[in-house]
């Protein structure tokens, strides 16, 4: 019997696990995939929004602002990079200037402090971002806007939770939940678990989970966002550049990433579940045509990847954060600004909805710090060589483009294990650079096979798919 079961290991589930691990409770996170946070948390804009934009009075507005204010401390404690680059919403026409004025007012209503939003002339804006397009006439500056490393945040949150006693099971898809005398019975991945409380943070599938216990009361429709990623050797912007918002939300952004790449996107289109991760000619053309409205010198020949993410949009339009029956907390529709809001939602849900059921006090031995990983590129040659003396694997660079060493890949053995080729590419950045793994994927495959002690043929690429199809006679 667990005290709390969390369904889903995206950034929302991960930060709930960490928040709960501050208390003397038994906690289990169940994740259907073979790696954590491979869904919405994997493919988004990574922006820690300031809170200027959500509709006043909404849960989005409330938790966005609170979440933004928690990110600096959280990033420090978990050693997750945070690019405190600020943001600019830009207007390129008199109509857009009016939209900007409205947004300025909204920022105030949403509770941003005076120094957290300012209206700038074109000249003032150019000092913050020299690469604005010639049409930009006015801009609103949002200095508290930042950029995080989303799945690293989820992995770090989970690692920290596990170090403080939580448990994680991957390849455990929740297929049924029933009520029992003491709480709930959860069927997942062929196993049966019991829990006194459940947090449903299954992202796009949260409505589906909710319906295992409740009549349907919300629907999730995927809203796809398509992006380009550019080569990190050619930075395009130094601050997040938003267009004036339109009917389709925040619009197409230019976002500097923590590793130097620039993200261009996203689009916004409601699609079927089947199509939620598909890029399309229409979508990518929309990015191409719109991005040059706000910024210039866009190096389309330096694009290294395109991808699509899927926002789990609820029909009501706002976040659903509710204890819908005793002990069962539904988190639905956690779309943008969900990444920003996640720490604040977790604090609220844990402190206000979950802990009162258990009447426990925080543990005295909770350790908020997740140990920093060695980052060779931040060190001097002498410091690097000290590490190599201890562990020769630091001297063996597996991924040339992003200088990922074999020791970095030892993260396979950390509490939140990477088990798939796809995860190495995202979390440890082996293959995330300009050659996109052409040079290192064979070596990564062999390291995964050796370290996980499985046959190379069994190394997964993504959940439920494999890198290899067969071995030749010689290799058998």
């Amino acid at each position: 019997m667990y005290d709390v079961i969390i369904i889903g290991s995206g950034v929302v589930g991960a930060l709930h696990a960490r928040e709960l691990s501050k208390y003397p409770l038994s906690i289990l996170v169940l994740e259907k995939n073979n790696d954590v946070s491979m869904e919405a948390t994997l493919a988004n804009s990574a922006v820690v929004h300031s809170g200027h934009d959500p509709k006043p009075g909404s849960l989005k507005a409330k938790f966005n602002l609170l979440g933004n204010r928690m990110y600096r401390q959280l990033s420090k404690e978990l050693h997750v990079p945070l690019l405190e680059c600020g943001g600019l919403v830009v207007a390129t026409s008199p109509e857009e200037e009016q939209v900007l004025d409205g947004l300025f007012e909204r920022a105030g209503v949403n509770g941003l402090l005076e120094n957290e939003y300012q209206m700038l002339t074109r000249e003032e804006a150019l000092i913050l971002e020299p690469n604005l397009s010639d049409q930009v006439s006015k801009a609103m500056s949002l200095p508290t806007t930042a950029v995080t490393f989303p799945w690293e945040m989820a992995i770090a949150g989970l690692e920290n939770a596990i170090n403080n006693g939580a448990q994680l099971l991957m390849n455990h898809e929740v297929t049924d939940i029933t009520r029992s005398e003491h709480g709930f019975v959860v069927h997942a991945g062929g196993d049966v678990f019991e829990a006194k409380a459940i947090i449903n943070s299954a992202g796009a599938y949260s409505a589906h989970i909710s319906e295992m216990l409740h009549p349907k009361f919300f629907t999730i429709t995927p809203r796809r966002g398509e992006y380009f990623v550019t080569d990190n050797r050619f930075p395009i912007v130094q601050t997040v550049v938003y267009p004036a918002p339109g009917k389709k939300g925040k619009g197409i952004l230019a976002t500097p990433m923590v590793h130097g790449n620039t993200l261009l996107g996203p689009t916004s289109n409601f699609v079927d579940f089947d199509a939620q991760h598909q890029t399309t000619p229409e979508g990518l053309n929309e990015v191409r045509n719109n991005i040059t409205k706000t910024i210039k010198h866009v190096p389309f020949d330096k694009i290294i990847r395109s991808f699509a993410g899927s926002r789990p949009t609820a029909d009501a339009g706002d976040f659903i954060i509710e204890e819908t029956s005793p002990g069962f907390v539904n988190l639905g529709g956690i779309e943008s600004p969900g990444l920003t809001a996640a720490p604040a939602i977790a604090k609220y849900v844990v402190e206000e909805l979950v802990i009162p059921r258990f009447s426990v006090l925080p543990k005295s031995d909770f350790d908020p710090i997740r140990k920093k990983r060695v980052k060779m590129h931040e060190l001097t040659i002498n410091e690097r060589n000290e590490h190599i003396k201890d562990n020769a694997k630091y001297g063996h660079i597996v991924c040339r483009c992003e200088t990922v060493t074999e020791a970095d890949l030892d993260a396979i053995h950390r509490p939140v294990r990477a088990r798939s080729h796809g995860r190495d590419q995202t979390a440890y950045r082996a293959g995330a650079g300009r050659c996109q793994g052409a040079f290192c994927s064979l070596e990564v495959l062999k390291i995964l096979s050796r370290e996980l002690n499985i046959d190379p043929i069994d190394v997964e690429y993504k959940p439920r798919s494999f890198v290899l199809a067969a071995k030749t006679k010689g290799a058998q």
Partner: protein
Amino acid sequence: MGGILQQCIHSGFGVEMFKEDLTGPEYAERYIEKMQLAGLEFRTNSLVTELHEDRTLVYTNPIEGYVEVQGKAVILTMGCFERTPGQINLYGDRPAGIMTAGTAQSFLNKDGFLVGKRVFILGSGDIGLIMARRMTLEGAEVLGVAELNPYSSGLARNIVQCLDDFDIPLYLSHTVIQVIGSSRLESIIIAEVDEQKQPIPGTEKTFEVDTLLLSVGLIPDRHLTAQAGIKLHPRTGGPIVNNRYETNVPGIFAAGNGLHVHDLVDWVSLEGERAGESAARYVQGELTDAELISTEPGNGIIYVVPHYVLKQVDEDVRFYFRVDNVYKNVKVNIYKDDELLKSLKKNVMVPAEMEMIKVANQDILDASRVRIEVEVL
């Protein structure tokens, strides 16, 4: 050692240099032996991570760690990398089973791993063609090769030996318009393209495949060049060099696929020898400065390497160049300034095959420009 040659276990190497038909590893072995005989020092498993204008560089390996050294001269021979699925407009999901042909080649030829069983290939570059044959021989079914251009970007002999001999269809003026499958590739849709390279509605064909290999071009590896202030050429993607293969940074030379992408290893070796010799002369203080003659691609030519020739008595110059389209029954003219210096008749010229013309150095010393041009007869 040996670079890309070590995964090219097919034959077809060394016909010019050794008048023999060798495999890639055999060809490499000849040079590795020469290096060892000469007693040259070398490091394997060592990646150069930094290069500076003063010719200091940093490399690292598990035994020595990070080491900084300064070369009296430095030669860049870093090879090239393949254009990736991310660089072309590939629409649809991002499932397992989509990779460059060279990656699949390394899996298969280095470790015997087959990446798929039903394969389609996008792009008719040589690596793709070679892999069509290799995967077929290993029991995979290759359903076709689609090429965006109306002509192949691989060598004619590879079309014959790797596709025709195995009845693998080549779809010219076709591209992949969608990839389908969320965890593993399930199918692809190809379509014919018009002259603007836009898909023509109604020409779609679907292939059920678990693997899509890309052979859509190679780009010189230039990630060390920016820091050292080395100027790159927009068409080759590699450094700009003179006839000594010296870049704009004195004492830094470049050759091979890292300079411009080659199809014949023999010419890579020739370039390498020339660059090596120049570097040795540089170290001895024998290289002197001189005025530059620029080389220019004229009508029908994409680029010419070297980009400059020094006005100085030296060895004969080999001009390497590629044409921008398929040409039949043409003349290649070499002009010094506006005077015709040399003219060669050619029955067929294709972009896939690099051309080379040797010009006596003293013939152009009084020129300020040399231009190479295709003349359609």
